[in-house]
């Protein structure tokens, strides 16, 4: 899922300060922790309380959108509110914020989150770990399902560097696992150490250069 962190409330207040009626748009899509209706209501109350304390009366309308990355869903979900409000605060990832801007170009839209990475959480309330950097050329088939691009601090593609000690990475002080150590152990377990002997040409970095576009035709 797409992992986001809350922005400090003061930063959000800074964006919306010139406006009074704010549409708080949650997203029920892949943003995590989930920022649906509960979060929209939470932010509505927090903003109103914070405004009151500073002498400003905000009026917030909390709603949620099934997927803020879909122009059509954004339009149908928000269109009935958009003329009543002065600004939109999106609780989605950076994609959601930009889609709302595209769909409703006449209204200011602000982010309530910092989108941090694509990752996972082993259990509720636990730490989120980055798992994928959308590099555009997936290597997981060669690396035992462990991503060196994301999980090696140096994104090395040809094995561990000299900073690896007892399977731990020098970056951050030998606390995190060395991705290449994990890859080696896993391929050994799978009996596929032969994959290390296979020649692989250097990566084509152009694939990952922004802004990227891919075709969207469905079979």
């Amino acid at each position: 899922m797409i992992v986001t962190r809350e922005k400090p409330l003061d930063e959000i207040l800074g964006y919306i300060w010139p406006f009074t009626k704010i549409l708080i748009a949650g997203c029920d899509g892949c943003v995590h922790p989930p920022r649906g209706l509960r979060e929209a209501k939470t932010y509505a109350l927090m903003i109103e309380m914070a405004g009151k304390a500073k002498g400003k009366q905000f009026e917030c309308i909390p709603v949620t959108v099934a997927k803020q990355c879909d122009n059509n869903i954004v339009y149908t979900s928000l269109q009935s509110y958009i003329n009543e409000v002065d600004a939109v605060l999106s609780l989605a990832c950076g994609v959601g914020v930009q889609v709302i801007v595209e769909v409703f170009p006449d209204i200011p839209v602000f982010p309530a989150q910092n989108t941090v990475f694509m990752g996972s959480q082993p259990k509720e309330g636990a730490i989120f770990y980055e798992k994928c950097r959308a590099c555009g050329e997936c290597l997981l088939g060669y690396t035992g399902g462990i991503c060196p691009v994301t999980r090696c601090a140096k994104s090395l593609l040809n094995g561990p560097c000299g900073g690896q000690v007892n399977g731990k990475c020098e970056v951050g002080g030998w606390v995190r696992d060395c991705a290449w150590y994990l890859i080696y152990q896993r391929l050994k377990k799978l009996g596929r150490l032969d994959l290390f002997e296979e020649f692989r040409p250097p990566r084509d970095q152009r694939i990952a250069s922004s802004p990227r576009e891919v075709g969207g035709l469905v079979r």
Partner: protein
Amino acid sequence: MGEGEYGMRVNENLCGGCGICVSICPYEAITLDEEKQRAVLDLEKCMFCGLCASSCPSGAIEVAYYELDELCDYVKKAVDAGKRVLAITCRGSTPPEEELKRMLEAHSINADEAAVVTVPCAGRVRMEFLLKSYTLGVEKAILIPCEADYCRFKRGSTASVKRVALLRSLLATLGIGEDWLVLAQSARRAEVDAYRCQGCGRCALTCPYEAITINPPGIAEVDASKCMGCGLCLAVCPAFAISIKGFEYDEISQRIRSEASKYVSAKTREKPAILLLCCQWSEYTALDEAREGKALDNVCVVELPCASRVDSLHIIEALSLGFDGVLVVACRKDECKFEDGNLKAEERISALKEFLSQVGLADRVEIAFVSPKYLSEFRDSLSKFVEKISSLSP
């Protein structure tokens, strides 16, 4: 009670050392002193279900709450008021009004004629009390314990079911007729509104009983045989898609809203408006008084199945409505009737406090860990909290 601050004690003069309490205690909190042939209570292990007290043949175990005399008084008053049917429900599964009505009607009882007594565990009701009720003029009694696998005290429900069977045969022998006493069972379990569910999986990851799965195309499903009704899933669901009858987000939210004006307008510097979100197992008297409509000192009490049901949004709502402080009342650390619901609540409260610190309200939310077996613990925590809130600038 006379025994310091504890709510339960063994009266050594009455105890005959039969050992029934030792075998029935679900928590191995009672042992037999071989030498003296007396039961010994380990208050640290005791969860305060009262099963020992209700099964003691000599009435040697004294409990501070729901004593025989107190319950009989209640019944007497009810009978005088024309309520000739006695319905005993368990705190953990008491059905909401409408459902209770249906349940009573199924046993051809008119709900308006029923006096409802709610006890922390149906298993703590003595057979003696039921017989006394008969002599007091009760025409029919219905005991509604939890469903067997739903009992918060492991054996309370089973014990009460067996007692009903025993009593019914006794009633038949006495010529009263076994139908004087009937049995119904109840449970409050989580239900998913498939229309609202977004399939995020948070409930499934959170459920301490692994009772929730996400089925394709992404809708949560609760396995009723595993759900214990703690309500943690309700508190974390981002879409308000899960409900437990009586403890739904909307239901509690409306209660806080409708009561807010009363408490907020009555607040003073000495009597701030306080909201208590109270686990139904951590405190008895305040909750009973709230059920009867008696208010504590400007303290609004909301009962929850477990502290883990505490919803951060309810707390934020209460603060925005003008409550000066919100106290979450949870069971003592090792006494949760579920799976560490109190500790999970503590974690979530600390995260909420950090969030609230952005608007300067972190100090107005606290969690207290108390047990009804220490009689003054709850009142002490509450007054400490009220004192702290009074000292904050408004």
